């Protein structure tokens, strides 16, 4: 790994990694995109991005021998930020296209949006209600808009793991946090200045 990189963006073959990389660099980070467990273990902090299906993503992580590397990095106290599907992968299990086990870093489930007249996927800019102060939310005003595009949402077992809520046919967890593991359902890399502020906060952790 190049000596100058500080943030490892985990590449497991799914998603728009380029946008995450550019956004991290735009706020002063030194990102490296990697699928190498050794690089992941050397990083100061990790971002787990991703779009696509949960089961495919877990298979790719397993085949790339990335699950143990992520677990080990988290155990050693390195901050981890999951984005969109990356947030969902942090949970125990998902019901997308059958039942799949997740990384189980945050206890809870991933379920499909349901509700009368609700358009799924949930697409567009929606507001985030901060439940408690957290360094990830520094200088992000209450009710800020972020860009969402997803059909499934997370249900943490413990309310303590919910950092923010968003309303779409009922409130769902839009940011989860447990220890040094954070996950956001929205795309900060696509959420203009507010998204950049959140990434800047993550780099300062």
């Amino acid at each position, binding site marked *: 790994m190049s000596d100058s990189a500080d943030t490892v963006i985990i590449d497991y073959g799914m998603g728009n990694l380029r946008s995450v990389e550019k956004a991290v660099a735009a706020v002063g980070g030194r990102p490296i995109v990697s699928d190498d467990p050794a690089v992941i273990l050397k990083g100061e902090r990790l971002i787990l991005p991703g*779009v*696509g299906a949960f089961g495919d993503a877990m298979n790719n992580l397993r085949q790339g021998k990335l699950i143990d590397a992520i677990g080990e990095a988290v155990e050693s106290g390195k901050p981890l930020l999951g984005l969109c599907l990356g947030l969902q992968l942090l949970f125990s299990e998902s019901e997308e296209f059958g039942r799949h086990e997740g990384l189980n870093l945050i206890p809870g489930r991933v379920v499909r949006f349901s509700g009368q007249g609700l358009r799924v996927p949930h697409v*567009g*800019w929606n507001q985030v209600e901060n439940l408690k102060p957290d360094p990830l939310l520094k200088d992000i005003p209450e009710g800020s808009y972020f860009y969402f595009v997803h059909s499934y949402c997370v249900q943490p077992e413990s309310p303590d793991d919910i950092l923010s809520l968003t309303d779409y046919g009922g409130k769902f967890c839009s940011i989860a946090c447990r220890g040094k593991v954070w996950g956001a359902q929205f795309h900060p890399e*696509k959420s203009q200045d507010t998204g950049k502020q959140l990434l800047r906060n993550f780099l300062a952790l």
Partner: protein
Amino acid sequence: MLAKRIIPCLDVRDGRVVKGTHFVNLRDAGDPVETAQRYDAEGADELVFLDITASSDRRDIVTRMVRAVADKVFIPFTVGGGLRTLEDIQSILRAGADKVSLNTSAVEDPNLITVASRYFGSQCIVVAIDARRNPDSDPENPRWEVTTHGGRITTELEAVEWAREVAGRGAGEILLTSMDRDGTQSGYDNLLNRRVSDTVDIPVIASGGCGTLEHIADAFIHGKASAALAASIFHFGNHTIVEAKRELRARGIPVRLVE
């Protein structure tokens, strides 16, 4: 609350933004990255690039443009025009686009929608439907025909039924253009927008006919659209996105206002 979206649409040819009406009298209107950055700063919620490049190295030209935009623009953008295969879609997404828009290729091979949405996820597959009213049908209860190749070819498909099918096949959104209104600046076809919005449970983007700020409000109030696409109203400097959003907010429509 989920905000209603305003989406400027940029036509691009050979890696440059072009302006014109009905694909004629096209003139160069600038660099895609600069144009996209300006709309981003004004508070556009997303961008759509429709590529009309005709040359044989089209894919390389488009991919290069997508990469340049993705490097500088931190809002979502969709790329459409001439994407026919999974490889075409993949090269655009890999270059940094958030979504692709499929039109003619989806009509010719509906299975492409199924396969692409399963492979890349529904959230990045937009199906564009170019609909035209059959002039012989009842104006109160019109039949909309699906057209392809920029409106030149009329298919056997009926637009509302086709919308139902593409949603069932896993499309994440429908970009619904009224070919009767496109380029006229006389307002969206909100009967069409409402019929499709009532039929599918995925978001519908209204397109074709926007000429005033009131038209945008109407697409949300009367057309039940989730987003409104517009080109000339913003390109020719008649209005800014901020003005449009202020107007919508004054009418009680939820918007993300960047000021």
